[in-house]
């Protein structure tokens, strides 16, 4: 069994518990992007690509696939740790992302756990749109080979 190391005990510079990852700013979300994401993911739910259908469901317009934002969160993580491998990723969807929105993908190191010749870094992650509206709150784990090479 592994155990999280409190911030005061771990010696894994340059990483520290509480460090913020370099955020990824993505967008504005376009209809073309949603069509491309639908094709690449095979998620053809018309609520994301057909305005008439979205309006019939009570929405003002189409909105982005939530899974696109979760996928972009994984990109943000991998851009911060190019040698790492994401071993878990989860998110709770709290708001939709409208067409035209600019998404900010961000993360903070919650824990660092030594594991064999690696470090397992636990992250709190978040996706948000302008006016600080959070669209996803989640967690992730990434396994990093030692020595660490940050982006």
């Amino acid at each position, binding site marked *: 069994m592994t155990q999280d190391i409190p911030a005061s005990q771990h010696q894994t510079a340059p990483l520290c518990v509480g460090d913020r990852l370099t955020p990824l700013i*993505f967008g504005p979300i376009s209809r073309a*992007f949603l069509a*491309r*994401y639908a*094709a*690449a*993911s*095979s*998620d053809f*739910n*018309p*609520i994301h690509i057909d305005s008439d*259908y979205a309006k*019939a*469901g*009570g929405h003002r317009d189409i909105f982005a696939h*939530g*899974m*696109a934002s*979760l*996928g*972009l969160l*994984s*990109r943000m993580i*991998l851009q911060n740790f190019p040698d790492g*491998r*994401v*071993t*878990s*990723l*989860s*998110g*709770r*969807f709290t708001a*939709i992302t409208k067409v035209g929105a600019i998404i900010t993908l961000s993360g903070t190191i919650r824990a660092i756990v030594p594991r064999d010749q690696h470090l397992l870094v636990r992250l709190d992650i978040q996706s948000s749109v302008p006016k600080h509206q959070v669209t996803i709150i989640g967690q*992730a784990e990434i396994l990093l080979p030692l020595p660490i090479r940050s982006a």
Partner: protein
Amino acid sequence: MTARISAQHRHPKGLFNHAAAGQHLPPVALTIDQRAIRDFRAVLGLDDGETAPPTFFTFLDAQADLVRQQSGQPTILEHIGCDYRYLLHGEEEYTGLSEMRGGDNIIVHSQIGEFYFSSNQQLEFAQIQHSARSPAGQALIQARRLYIHRLPQ
């Protein structure tokens, strides 16, 4: 687009087919397409690496549904009676992620979990669990997907 399910199976207060709770779907064997990985990575802006990104399982889930459709079986969302007009993602969880690459053979197992409502009865939830294994039985990923109907008032 409303998934095929007769009205008699709908929950009286909701839209999902609550009778599907606990149902195991037949496993589906897939071979991962390297081009699909490349396209998925590209749309997210990832470099042109060979490994499947963490959320690539959503594509595999869709592919498994395609196999079901082609063999005359209902898709998962048809099993649970989803109405796309009101459908939202609630939560997504991917754990035990192993590296998957083009050409890998996998077997997708899926089970329909529980259905429930928010306390104000305005949201209806459906939970689906998946796992993917190699033909030798090695666990490659476990996924939990929570779907929501935002119920028309």
